[in-house]
């Protein structure tokens, strides 16, 4: 009869089957967050690339930068469900923090530059997020878009400082950790970018599998219910937006450092759209979608745009349309569906 007993007061009678069920349920939640061996694959691939394509590592580090950028977007788009058209704003803030830091202040130490970029971009994320994240839909799309373009125009306005669309010239950074010089083939840069990506990835993975990350998923799934169960939705969103902005800033800083230049195009709408396309193609809300999407996009772009940029643009447009119509969960989603299909087949046989 006692239905709503607090769990500590009276323990309901449990038979062994019930206990087993509880164990299974608890195990399910715990196991989901554990490291699984397929997760090693992308990292192995990254290391393999280092040895297999030693002459393409400059391009390789560009890919890693975009993976990091897409990962930051996944945090807000894939997990929290915030649709933004202005994520390039934070990439740009990070890129210009180290760019101007090196050119104007002589701050040429790369690793501390990443921290500075994280700080500046996350500050930008906090300030804009605090005001913008009250809105949804078209209003939010336009606000994020306009904010990014405003930064770009502001940069152009002070082109004496930023170099405008010609960029900040003559950037030279200190050797990494004071020891490793940058070589012509980008070996140092590649390792540098890979290590930064791995460290950030570790943090992002912790966050999305934490109770906080779970709450973000809740906001994406049903924001009304989150309000009703007492979730401080606005602060959760501002928090994750700030973190994601900071990570985008790190990506931007890496971009500047590995290229040794930066121009105002980093703020462009095309940059925001491109990273979103990468993430969508890879699959949102699953961490490795950013990996796959950015890598596939960049490699295809590299290959096809050499053949014909027009053809490439048409292809990527077509791919987007097809993805929306037929594969809403991205490439990883398709893999999962195929996996589920075989798992089911196996299940029915045995």
């Amino acid at each position, binding site marked *: 009869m006692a239905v709503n007993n607090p769990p500590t007061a009276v323990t309901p009678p449990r038979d062994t089957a019930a206990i087993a069920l509880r164990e299974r349920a608890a195990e399910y939640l715990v196991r989901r967050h554990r490291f699984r061996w397929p997760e090693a694959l992308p990292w192995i691939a990254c290391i393999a690339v280092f040895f297999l394509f030693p002459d393409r590592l400059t391009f390789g580090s560009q890919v890693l930068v975009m993976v990091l950028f897409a990962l930051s977007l996944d945090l807000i788009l894939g997990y929290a469900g915030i*649709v933004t058209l202005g994520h390039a704003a934070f990439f740009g803030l990070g890129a210009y923090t180290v760019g101007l830091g090196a050119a104007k202040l002589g701050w040429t130490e790369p690793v501390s530059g990443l921290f500075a970029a994280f700080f500046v971009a996350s500050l930008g994320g906090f300030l804009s997020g605090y005001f913008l994240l009250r809105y949804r839909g078209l209003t939010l799309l336009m606000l994020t878009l306009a904010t990014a373009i405003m930064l770009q125009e502001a940069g152009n306005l002070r082109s004496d400082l930023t170099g405008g669309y010609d960029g900040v010239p003559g950037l030279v950074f200190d050797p990494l950790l004071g020891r490793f010089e940058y070589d012509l083939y980008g070996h140092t840069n590649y390792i540098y970018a890979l290590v930064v990506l791995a460290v950030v990835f570790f943090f992002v993975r912790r966050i999305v599998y934490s109770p906080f990350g779970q709450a973000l998923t809740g906001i994406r799934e049903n924001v009304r219910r989150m309000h009703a169960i007492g979730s401080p939705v606005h602060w959760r969103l501002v928090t994750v937006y700030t973190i994601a902005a900071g990570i985008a800033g790190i990506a931007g800083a890496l971009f500047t450092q590995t290229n040794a230049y930066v121009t105002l195009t980093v703020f462009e709408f095309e940059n925001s759209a491109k990273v979103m396309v990468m993430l969508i193609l890879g699959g949102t809300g699953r961490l490795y979608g950013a990996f796959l999407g950015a890598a596939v996009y960049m490699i295809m772009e590299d290959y096809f745009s050499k053949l014909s940029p027009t053809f490439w643009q048409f292809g990527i447009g077509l791919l987007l*349309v097809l993805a929306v119509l037929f594969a809403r969960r991205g490439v990883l989603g398709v893999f999962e569906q195929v996996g589920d299909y075989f798992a089911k087949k196996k299940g029915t046989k045995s």
Partner: protein
Amino acid sequence: MPQFAIIGVSILFDGLAYAMFLFITSVGLSVTMGLMGFVNLAHGAFAMAGGYIVVALTRNLGIGFVPSLFIAAVLVGLISVVFERGLYRRLYKSTDLEQVLLTIGLAFMAIATATYFFGPIPKSVPLPTWLQGDINLGFRAFPTYRAFLIIVGLVLISVLWYGFEKTNIGAKIRAAVDNRRMAESVGINVDLLFTLTFALGSALAALGGGLAIQLFGLSPSFAVLYLVLFLIVVAVGGLGSLKGTLLAALVIGVIDTAGKYLYAEAGGFFIYAITVIVLLIKPAGFYGRE
């Protein structure tokens, strides 16, 4: 006449011409977004398509500029129905994100197609002699073409206002924008209504695209470059509001022009700043429903 007054009049005149282009191109987007809540980032592509059809008709077939505008509008209107029925329709109930992605994809494809056929170099259009030259009012000469654009804009505003406010179909559209479910329950066929307004909106966009060639030149990037402005006009004006779209077009048009006259280095900074300020204060725009 003192210098600042001449500049003031010039800003108003050029700003008004610019505003008319913005209004003509954006109004369809506003109404269709208001009706279906559909985020259509391919709207600029329809405008671009209109522009290229005008270029092709005038340059390759030797058809006059004004008839070409009409043909382009009708053609794009018809083509848009195919897209609406075939693609857009599937996503009315989808998320913003999916709509954004689908229409960005379409815009990319449109840009690539235009580049393939017309190349990346900006195109111009041959104008009839009566649209060339200036009208001299003594203190300043005004380009005839811009005066023409203003007149076309004013005529269209009157026609649209009449159609929206005074006709049966306009009343239905307003009812559906206001409360779609209610409109459906009293027997308005919102689906058909949407197809019609979508076609009309795309036709107007095509007209705007054709009219814009003389102002800005026409290159494939038009589809994305000006899209941001159309979206701003729609968001600032308020979805589905004719009045709001007009007001927003005037504000953006005049302020952007003023910025270019007085402080060219700032580029578009002011209009984006104003967009952010307006939307922060009135998230649904000037005349949008909160």
